[in-house]
Each structure stands twice: as structure tokens, then as C-alpha cells.
């Protein structure tokens, strides 16, 4: 017990006493340490944005996207999980990542989706959360690639123009109001607006 207190006292002493090293060296060490920490932090965060990482727990969902247009298409652009489910702006991303730690708890401790059956059971709840999130941020993750200002209605089909030039243009509706289940199978939709 005593040695712990002594060690803490010693550490406090290091923090308080002026360094014997030159200020330049201390500054350099600070910068280098900061760079390394920042690099490692961002690399770690990027690692949690990869398809492999997501499929660690959400394997059935990751399989579903493979037949949709966001996975394979004529021009070879692909949107992976994090492109739609994690905000791109740094601060929003951190907020989402912290929220996700609760989801880790649900997966590993309360084990709510660790079997396909449990996942199926909970799918509607998970989907509703995601729809609510995207509705509240005006489908920001869609708009990261699909900018309304850049849409050419003359290139769209009449069906699309009809919806985009009215409800979407006026801001009355947002992308996810109509485009649900574009990358996944849908949960039970019988109580969802526009589907019943």
C-alpha cells in the first residue's frame, strides 16, 4: 500500500518540478507523442468503420447488401456500412461512436442479437431507430453522396421526378421517408406509414 502512495507522490513530483531537459526537447516530445496518439486514435476509429468490423456482429445484414445497388453497380461505386450508418463529420462521428458503445453492451452482455432468431425478432426495433436517426438529420448520410441540388430531373424517370420535385424539394419529406430497406431486407412494415 505504502509503495503505491510513494509512486504517486513521485509522479506528482515529476509533474510539478521543472524538467531538467531543454524546453525544446520537452516540446518535441509533446508534439511527437501527440502525433502518435492522434494517428493511433484515428486509425483505431477507421478500423471500426470497415465492413469486416461490422460483419463481426451484423453478419446476416452484411450479406443482404450484396445484392443491392449500393454494393455492386455499373459504375463501381460502393457504399459500405459506415457510409450510411456513421456520420462523416468528425464531431458527429465521435458522438455516434460513443452511442455505439451502448450497442456493444447490448451485443456482448445482454446478448440481444447474437443469434439469427433474436436478430429477426429485434429487427423492427433496430430499423426504427435508424429511420428515426436519419429522419432527424434530414437523411444526412444519403445526402453525403446524393445531393438534391445536383439532381437532374430530366435524367430521372417520371416516377422519380414526380416525388423528388414535390415532396423532397419542399422539404416536406426526406430521403428515408420513401427509401427504406434500400440496402437491407425490411422488417414487418404493416404499421409503417406508406407501407400499410
Amino acid at each position, binding site marked *: 500500500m505504502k509503495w503505491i502512495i510513494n509512486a504517486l507522490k513521485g509522479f506528482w513530483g515529476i509533474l510539478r518540478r521543472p524538467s531538467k531537459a531543454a524546453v525544446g526537447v520537452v516540446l518535441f516530445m509533446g508534439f511527437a507523442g501527440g502525433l502518435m496518439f492522434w494517428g493511433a486514435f484515428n486509425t483505431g476509429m477507421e478500423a471500426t468503420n470497415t465492413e469486416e468490423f461490422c460483419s463481426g456482429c451484423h453478419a446476416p445484414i452484411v450479406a443482404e447488401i450484396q*445484392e*443491392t*445497388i449500393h454494393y455492386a453497380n455499373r459504375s463501381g461505386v460502393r457504399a459500405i456500412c459506415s457510409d450510411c450508418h456513421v456520420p462523416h463529420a468528425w464531431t458527429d462521428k465521435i458522438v455516434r461512436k460513443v452511442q455505439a458503445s451502448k450497442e456493444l453492451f447490448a451485443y456482448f452482455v445482454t446478448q440481444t442479437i447474437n443469434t439469427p432468431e433474436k436478430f429477426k425478432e429485434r429487427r423492427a426495433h433496430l430499423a426504427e431507430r435508424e429511420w428515426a436517426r436519419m429522419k432527424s438529420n434530414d437523411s444526412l448520410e444519403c445526402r453525403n453522396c446524393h445531393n438534391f441540388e445536383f439532381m437532374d430531373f430530366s435524367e430521372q*424517370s*417520371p*416516377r422519380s421526378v*414526380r*416525388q423528388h420535385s414535390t415532396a423532397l424539394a419542399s422539404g416536406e419529406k426526406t430521403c428515408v421517408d420513401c427509401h427504406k*430497406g*434500400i440496402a437491407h*431486407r*425490411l*422488417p*414487418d*412494415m404493416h404499421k409503417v406509414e*406508406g*407501407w*400499410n
Partner: protein
Amino acid sequence: MKKSILLTLSITLTLISGFAVSEEQRGIGGVESLRGSAELEATRAADPMKKVPRDQVDIESSYVFQPPLIPHHIRNYEISLNANKCLSCHGWKNAKEMGATKISVTHFTNRNDEVLADVSPRRYFCLQCHVTQADAKPLVGNSFERVQSLQK
């Protein structure tokens, strides 16, 4: 006895040798196909996949009671126990707002001709009758003509 054995043996040998020859000359087996005359033992390169156009003008019916054809693409439109993407536009509730054709009233009757409050389960799976049309030319010609009432 000896003669008959010899005869059987010679016939068998002839048959086997004949079989061997035909195996060498399999070719196309004498069958010309509209899909091209590929040799039986070779796998022909697949034709390019046919495309369903994004949108086409409404396709006229060819006979009375024909389920109308789908004049647009339906890639990844889910029809399952959970969701029916077709009905989210063509169902009576949403058709007007979406500018879509309403499903026919016949879809509300069950097999005893009783009218139900919603789409009859036997009519739920749209693609059983309604299909998209790919941009494909017919392989063979035919002289089919529409009935008088559907002709223009």
C-alpha cells in the same frame, strides 16, 4: 454352340466399336438451336443478360383478363411476409398520392368470391401474374393477333 458364341462376340465387338466411333463424332448431335449451334461437349458463352428498362410506356394487353405487365424496373423491390413494395404505390391507400395505377378490385375477393376488406392473401404475391418486360426480341416469329375488342 461354338458358332453362336462367336456370333454374339462379334456382334458385341461391332457394337462397342460403333459406340466408340460415335463418341468421337458427337458434334452438335444433329440439333441446330436458335441459341446457336454449340457443340454438346463445349459450354457456349452465355448471352448478355437482358435488361429491364427503367420505364416504358404502358404495355397494351393482348387478351382479355391478361394481368397488366409491369412497365418499369423492379430491382430489389421486396415482396415478402414483412413488406410489399408494389402495394406501397399500387395499393388503394397510396395509389392516388403516388400517381400509380390502383390494383383491380378483383384482388379483394377470396376464392369463394367473398369481398374482403383488404388485398386477398391469394393475390398478395404480385409477381405470380404481373411481370416486367425485358428489352428482348422474340426468338421465333408467330402470327398471334389480339382479339377484336383489344385491337386498335
